[in-house]
């Protein structure tokens, strides 16, 4: 397991690479990517039982980026974890390539468990994978990272009821609760609060953490699978655009692409020199 300091450093590097790629490939959803970086680095460097050299092992843990628009962050963390060379990302967004705004299907890129992008699909698919483990008597866990806006989708709550009712205890949901969706505050679009109570009411163990605090995230993951036999929902309070002062909590960065000067300033704030 990597140390907290190591994971923090990885998060800084990932943020810098995501911002550079966004600039170079005109890739949107920067704010949404930056808000989930610490969750991804914690999972990939201290939680998931995965082996990039044996990425099809039936016993591997599954991670699904249900908020598929965070793909630019996922692609970077998968490269950093060794699923493919980081140099592959040099032609991000190019015609004929594989790296787009959303993840491709698993057979096109190692490390991807599901092609997401249409919200509300990743969790139910992951639920199927978690149910398969029970039927096949296998011991793996399934993790699905959702956005708060994604909780608008009815299929999320269909899955939540199924998993809660059938006690799918090897299923963990992490909600990147950055309080924004594409065009407005998530709480102002649809009645989201009280989010943790909602998941609890659907039969899940819930815990609220600071989604940028590696220690808190690791502690939450260490209690999963829960002894209660319930699935677990980790409500991770995050800041959209986290890590760069002029992007933090500014929803313009849902679609805005940083210019050269902004990339330079971001890297300086992140303490990345190259």
């Amino acid at each position, binding site marked *: 397991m990597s140390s907290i300091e190591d994971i923090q450093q990885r998060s800084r590097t990932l943020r810098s690479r995501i911002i550079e790629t966004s600039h170079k490939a005109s890739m949107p959803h920067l704010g949404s990517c930056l808000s989930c970086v610490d969750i991804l680095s914690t999972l990939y460097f201290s939680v998931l039982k995965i082996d990039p050299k044996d990425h099809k092992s039936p016993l591997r843990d599954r991670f699904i980026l249900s908020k598929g628009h965070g793909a630019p962050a996922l692609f970077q963390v998968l490269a950093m974890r060794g699923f493919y060379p980081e140099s592959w990302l040099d032609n991000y967004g190019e015609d004929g390539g594989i790296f787009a705004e959303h993840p491709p*299907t698993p057979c096109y890129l190692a490390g991807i468990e*599901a092609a997401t992008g249409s919200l509300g699909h990743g969790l139910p698919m992951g*639920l*199927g994978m978690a*149910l*398969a483990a029970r*039927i096949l008597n296998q011991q793996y866990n399934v993790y699905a990272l959702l956005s708060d806006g994604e909780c608008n989708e009815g299929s999320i709550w*269909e899955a939540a*009821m*199924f998993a809660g009712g059938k006690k799918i205890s090897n299923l963990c949901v992490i909600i990147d609760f950055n309080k924004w969706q594409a065009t407005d505050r998530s709480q102002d679009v649809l009645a989201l609060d009280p989010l943790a109570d909602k998941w609890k009411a659907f039969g899940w163990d819930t815990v609220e953490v600071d989604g940028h605090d590696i220690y808190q995230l690791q502690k939450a993951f260490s209690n999963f699978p829960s002894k209660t036999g319930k699935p677990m929902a980790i409500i991770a309070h995050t800041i959209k655009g986290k890590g760069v002062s002029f992007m933090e909590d500014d929803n313009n960065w849902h679609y805005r692409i940083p210019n050269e000067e902004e990339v330079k300033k971001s890297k300086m704030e992140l303490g990345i020199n190259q």
Partner: protein
Amino acid sequence: MRNSFADEITQLAKEDKRIVLLSGDIGNKLFDKFKEVDPARFHNCGIAEANMMSVAAGLAMSGLRSIVYTITPFTTTRCFEQIRVDVCYHEAPVIIVGTGAGLSYADLGPTHHSLEDLAILRTLPGMRVMAPCDAVELRLALREALKGNSPVYIRIGKKGEPKIHNTTPDFIIGKSITLREGSDVAIVCAGTIMTEALAAADLLHVEGISAEVVSMHTIKPLDDAYLVKVAGKCKLLATIEEHGVIGGLGSAVAEWRSETNSPIPQICFGTPDEFMHEVGSQEYARKKYGLKAGNIASVITERYKSL
């Protein structure tokens, strides 16, 4: 037909431990025997078809063979995006079964009619689309679908549909079954409306018209080879389906005619571009939409004699 489905899938589940059956809160007691085989492989997913379809995809992506079963509109139009993205885009070998297809549930109103499922499912890359004409074909379709490794949609009737096949025919997905040889008119039919197709052929015989009757149980991939053969033999082709005339079997055959520049004329029997607002039985609905043997035979006779 649904009882045959329950019976066959129960048999298959005994033989194949990968089979998992998901139902959308229908079929009270229908699957009790399946549950006896292995309760862990049957799940009532509740009235939540979008989740059910995604779960089926997740199961299939984990090495299992999931079968999704509910009333046709709810397992097709209701969760079309889940079929498109989670099943087809991922090439997940899910078998989707729609019960009470076409006008089987005519008396339940248009919410329960299914007259567009063949059309929309046919548009999805990798999806195979089937409409067996009776329980015999349904059982064979299920077995064949499980041999393959790609998504399949099978629309079936409700219960009490007459048996068409007295013996077990050779059954290959994408290859039609000729039920009756003929030389003047080819009646190409999909699904349980086959009873009317065969009765229409009898009526045509009285008129001195020799009608071939074919079960085109697979709408996609279409049996092009058969169409080439029959177009060289017959003067007129009629498609019959309990489905809208837009996008189903008739359209698929018309696409083939267009692609191949086939000169054979075609009559499409199906339901028109409308919802059925009045109440009625399946028989009533078939009659209303000109899908009974008498009307089929007279339309074909008139057209044939004008050629």
